[in-house]
């Protein structure tokens, strides 16, 4: 059913720290590695060793520049499904292949029902859905349902592949509907925000802003060095011309 659940018992999702992400793409690679054998397997590649390689990935790591001059900084920006509370990708689906789970809020595609019309990818502002032309169906992040509930894995590994692998600790997984959960506390403490809130999808995943940076450069402004004298002074004068 493409009707959305009135409420979900949990709102499982990710909190992504834009302050600590180093843009290494490890999350994207581990996601691809896990999911090409997981629930939505395979994540097909087209022409993988050719000049125009393309393929299905659930994580895409962008880099943005923000600010100018001393206030300028580079921010690495991982982008994946936000498992929205009111996902338009689900309600536009004509077949019921797309659905949002009542138990944990995860948005999934039933590949046996998908007709590959791609309308859900048009309805998603975040580019989370990638079409598998080989399978003829739409694919998307599953929040690693085959890891987080997998009793064959040690308990500490029951987190999405992207979270498990992040070397910087920039990705956090948990229940964002529970105000006392670690992720909810983190969002509250750091001022976590929604992407494009004006479009009304009410994303579950939150992003943490880069922390304000102490401007150590300005404080430690190096005083002009003294003019050297003697031989070094001569060289300095010659090369300063």
């Amino acid at each position, binding site marked *: *059913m*493409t009707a959305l659940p009135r409420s979900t018992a949990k709102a499982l999702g990710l909190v992504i720290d834009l302050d600590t992400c180093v*843009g290494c*793409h490890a999350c*994207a690679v581990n996601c691809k590695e896990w999911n090409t054998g997981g629930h939505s397997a395979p994540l097909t590649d087209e022409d993988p060793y050719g000049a*125009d*390689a*393309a*393929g299905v*990935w659930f994580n*895409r*790591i*962008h*880099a*943005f*520049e*923000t*600010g*100018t001059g001393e206030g300028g900084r580079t*921010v690495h*920006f991982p*982008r994946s499904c936000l498992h929205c509370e009111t996902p*338009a990708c689900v*309600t*536009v*689906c*004509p*077949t*019921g*292949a797309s659905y949002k789970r009542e138990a944990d809020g995860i948005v999934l595609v039933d590949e046996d*029902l*998908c*007709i*590959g*019309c*791609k*309308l859900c*990818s*048009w*309805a*998603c*502002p*975040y*580019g989370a859905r*990638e*079409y598998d*032309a080989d399978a*003829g*169906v*739409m694919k998307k992040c599953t929040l690693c349902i085959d890891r987080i509930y997998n009793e064959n894995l040690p308990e500490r590994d029951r987190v999405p592949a992207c979270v498990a692998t992040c070397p910087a600790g920039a990705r956090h997984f948990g229940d964002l509907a529970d105000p006392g959960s670690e992720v909810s506390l983190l969002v509250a403490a750091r001022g976590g*925000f*929604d*992407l*494009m*809130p*004006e*479009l*009304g999808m009410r994303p579950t995943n939150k992003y943490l*802003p*880069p922390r304000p940076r102490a401007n150590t450069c300005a404080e430690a402004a190096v005083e002009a060095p003294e003019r050297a004298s003697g031989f070094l002074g001569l060289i300095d004068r010659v090369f300063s011309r």
Partner: protein
Amino acid sequence: MHPAYSVIFFTVSSGAGFGMLMIAGTLAAIGRLSTDALFGWLVMAAALGAAAAGLISSTLHLGHPERAWRALGQWRTSWLSREGVAAVATFPPALLFAWGWAVAGKLSFPYVCAGGIAAVLALVTVACTGMIYQSLVTIRAWHNRLVTPVYLVLALASGALWLAFLARVTGNGDPALTHLPIGLLAAGWLLKRRYWRGRDNDTGGPTVASATGLGRDGDSVRLLESPHTQENFVMREMGYRIARKHALKLRRVAVALAFALPMALTGAAMLPAAAPIAAVLALLAAVGGTIGIAAERWLFFAEARHAVTLYYGAERA
């Protein structure tokens, strides 16, 4: 947005077919339709043929065309599903109407009722098509209250052009049919002008600042590095962009072909002096108008920018 030819063909072809059905069914319901069986046969074959051809072509771009029937299931939430249900529901009354008009050769009460019902369902189908686009908040050019009216008026106008041609060919030159395209084309022209003017003056919409949350303090935000070297599905499907100067040129072509030319030809066909070639003029008007509406539909896609482009270098979408 990538202008897929199957979708353009679908909306233009089924739009014209359902437009013919809307007009013929309405005229039958108010008792203004000629009972000429040949005319009826040609109109219903063209209308149902164009509508069906469009619908079939729309399933060809699916990843799994054999599962297309599943699209009838989720009409509670999905405009695409509603469109499918309405399109399928249009055919039984339309076929009954066609039987009465073209085969039985009489427009008696049950056939007239079927015509009226088919006209309403055809209108609902085209309105659902418009709403598929209008309901997408991710594409500002489409999330616009003029989108569905434009779809409806252009479907009616192209249907009216073909009906006027068939009326002239079979000698059923009822002014209600032969004059109709002018009014509908004028309405379409005005709506489209208003739509384009609104689009050109639109400065709202999500920005790269709101897409990343990085510009919330007023800082500038710009893409430094794309996540991948080659285009992915998202960029191919949603990243299609047409240069503004080309768009303006194509708008003029679309206006000339879709509105100005068919209006002039339809007007010329009404002149007494043009009587011997009136059918030829009406045919040219219908062909030109249909090509023009296809150009308009192509632009509808090519000019539309999706919010996801903000992650790939666009500043506003």
